[in-house]
């Protein structure tokens, strides 16, 4: 394994092919939870945590069971069931052993099952589609790394957006733009800014 592959995965997932700004994954939680800094931070951390574990679990499932003929037929159903079960397990485990963490992240966990970043990274790790890096199909470490850095990218943009929207609360905005429309315009401008990272790698 070369260091350049690691670097291109991390840089690509956090900055260039950011989940929210360039792959359009996880937009619902992005718009829903970005009103306040605190909740954005909680959601971001919860996503990083779950996405790392779930990319490990789905990769193992893919590598040992779904590489044969069954793969195309069972992939979707298997992944979504693994993720749903995993989120449930994490929730129960956290409640029992880490009450403080559960207090902070608990309410975001059930929402994460339907967050498309989690299922999205499972597919990205194991797909042949041109938008994905093929290296993650063979290496457990790279697959988990891709999940983790995707989560970091999501959390980064969520926190940036929460900062912007907290400021927007106190500014005078024309009535037709208030709420979601102005949030979309801000996201669009942020996506323009992130396009500047394309030359990085």
């Amino acid at each position, binding site marked *: 394994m070369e260091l350049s592959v690691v670097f291109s995965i991390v840089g690509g997932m956090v900055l260039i092919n950011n989940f929210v700004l360039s792959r359009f994954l996880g*937009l*619902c939680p992005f718009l829903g939870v970005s009103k306040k800094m605190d909740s954005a931070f909680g959601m971001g951390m919860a996503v990083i945590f779950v996405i790392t574990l779930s990319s490990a679990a789905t990769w193992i499932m893919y590598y040992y069971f779904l590489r044969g003929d069954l793969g195309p037929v069972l*992939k*979707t159903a298997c992944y979504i069931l693994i993720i749903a079960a995993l989120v449930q397990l994490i929730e129960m485990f956290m409640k029992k052993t880490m009450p403080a963490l559960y207090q902070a992240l608990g309410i975001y966990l059930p929402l994460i099952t*339907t967050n*498309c970043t989690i299922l999205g990274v499972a597919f990205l790790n194991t797909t042949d589609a041109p938008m*994905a890096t093929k290296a993650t199909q063979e290496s457990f470490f790279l697959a988990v790394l891709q999940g983790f850095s995707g989560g970091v990218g999501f959390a980064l943009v969520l926190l940036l957006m929460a900062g912007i929207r907290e400021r927007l609360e106190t500014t005078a905005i024309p009535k037709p733009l208030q709420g979601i429309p102005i949030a979309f315009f801000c*996201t669009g401008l942020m996506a323009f800014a992130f*396009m500047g990272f394309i030359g990085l790698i």
Partner: protein
Amino acid sequence: MSATKEFTKGIWAENPVFVIMLGICPTLATTSNITNAFCMGLAVIFTLMACNAVISIVRRIIPGEIRIPCYIVIIASFVTIIDLCMHAFLPLAIYEALGIFIPLIVVNCIILGRAEAFAAKNNVWLSILDGLGMGIGFTLALCMLASVREFIGNGTLLNYQIISVFTSKANNPNAWVEPIGVFSQPAGAFLVIGGYLTLFQYLKIRRVQKEQAHTQKQS
């Protein structure tokens, strides 16, 4: 009459993209041109109708506590079917452009949302109509977004050159204005949907104001 209402509400009054704001991710990702948007819309129409029908049939058998996992399994099966069909019958370029967004229909909030909000409470016939209406509304919204993005971003509609002078210099040396390429890229998608939502919010505010003026005049 109520059957007609269930069918038409998804198309305009409760449009899944512009009014309920569900399923934004595939909406933005697949609308860089109309062909992709339409194929995505067809996939969603099929999944919505089939899932609504099946869930409505088994709604009395599934225990309330585990209904969500059951729904997800049903949805995942239909999405797998549509995924394999599209791989088999669509041109490979379109299938690859839609990419992971076909399997990701599973976590599209519209499908689970309609299953939970409508199919779990109504009979099969109404559920299918509701799914069809919502699906058509979704496809319509996708095509509205895609037509703006394809026209401004590429100067074409359905890959057909509309105005001969609105193209890149490479295609036509006499071109006057070049298309704004960024509109077919991710950043433009946010601006276009932001613009549409602003327009709809403006129309809504104006309607409310008119109604208020009307009632004041009457009293």
